[in-house]
């Protein structure tokens, strides 16, 4: 029984992650990013607890157990974060939600007018600015964080490998 509890522990930790996200966001009205990080930390604490508790009966090497349990928890958390992030950033999700709210169908012209390219760009720049990833200095946009550039370059490399073109 305890061994199977260990198997299920990444999913239990993810449930704790979701529960704490909801608690922080809804009960304490924390910002989305902070609530996600808070949930992640509580889930992480739970998985650490599960792993330490299992050391007596787990019949696998400690390093393997760590990689398995933390790896599963972190990748599941990444999926959860992406799911939340899609609602906030994805153009496609915005469009299907607009369509749902309009009763399932809408004229293409009306749909395009409902979210102009200028508004879309301003929204993205504001998000990057709030996330301290870019800054506006003397009328020039500059990069502030190199991490997001590394992610963008990695995706471009992958696109090249897949034959989709780099940029």
């Amino acid at each position, binding site marked *: 029984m305890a061994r199977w509890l260990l198997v299920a522990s990444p999913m239990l930790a993810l449930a704790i992650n979701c529960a704490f996200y909801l608690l922080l966001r809804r009960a304490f009205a924390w910002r989305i990013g902070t609530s996600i990080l808070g949930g992640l930390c509580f889930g992480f604490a739970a998985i650490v607890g599960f792993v330490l508790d299992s050391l007596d009966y787990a019949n696998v090497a400690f390093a393997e157990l760590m990689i398995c349990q933390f790896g599963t928890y972190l990748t599941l958390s990444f999926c959860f974060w992406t799911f939340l992030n899609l609602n906030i950033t994805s153009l496609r999700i915005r469009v299907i939600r607009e369509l749902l709210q309009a009763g399932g169908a809408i004229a293409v012209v009306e749909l395009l007018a409902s979210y102009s390219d200028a508004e879309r760009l301003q929204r993205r720049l504001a998000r*990057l600015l709030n996330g301290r990833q870019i800054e506006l200095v003397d009328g020039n946009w500059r990069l502030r964080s190199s991490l997001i550039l590394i992610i963008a370059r990695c995706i471009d490399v992958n696109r090249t490998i897949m034959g989709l073109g780099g940029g």
Partner: protein
Amino acid sequence: MMKNIAFLALALAGGFIFQVVWWRIRRPSISSVLFLFALAFIGLSMTGLCLGILNLGPADYVRLTLLYISVTLSYAILCSAVEVRSPTLGIITYIADRGRCGCPERELMQHFLAQGALADRIELMEVGGLVRIVERNCALTNKGLLFANLFEFAAQFFDLPKGG
């Protein structure tokens, strides 16, 4: 000691190599990619168990399978980011390519406003079967309706603002 993890890495690498080859011949859908990775895992684990390379109890096998599934799901998410380039990352690379001086605000606006991203996305959504365009009207398909309801529910449940 880390034989099981090495096996898992091998299955992932196998799935990735097959996918790259397949992608270059005919671009697979994300569901096909997941199927491909599932096949790589089942094939390799069956071989490993038959040849006695893998010696696992049922709980350990389930544990490894869960890790493999979660890594594959994360990879599928990254695949969709690779398939359709994010406009946000496009902005980042455009600014970075302008060097230390940065990119003038007007130039950035002119470059990205000329792209018509929303029209492109609607086209991609039609190809992906989320919407259909009939007589200049855009309508949700059954698949689109399912996703729309799911994300609408999630937005309310997780208290998320309308994005895009």
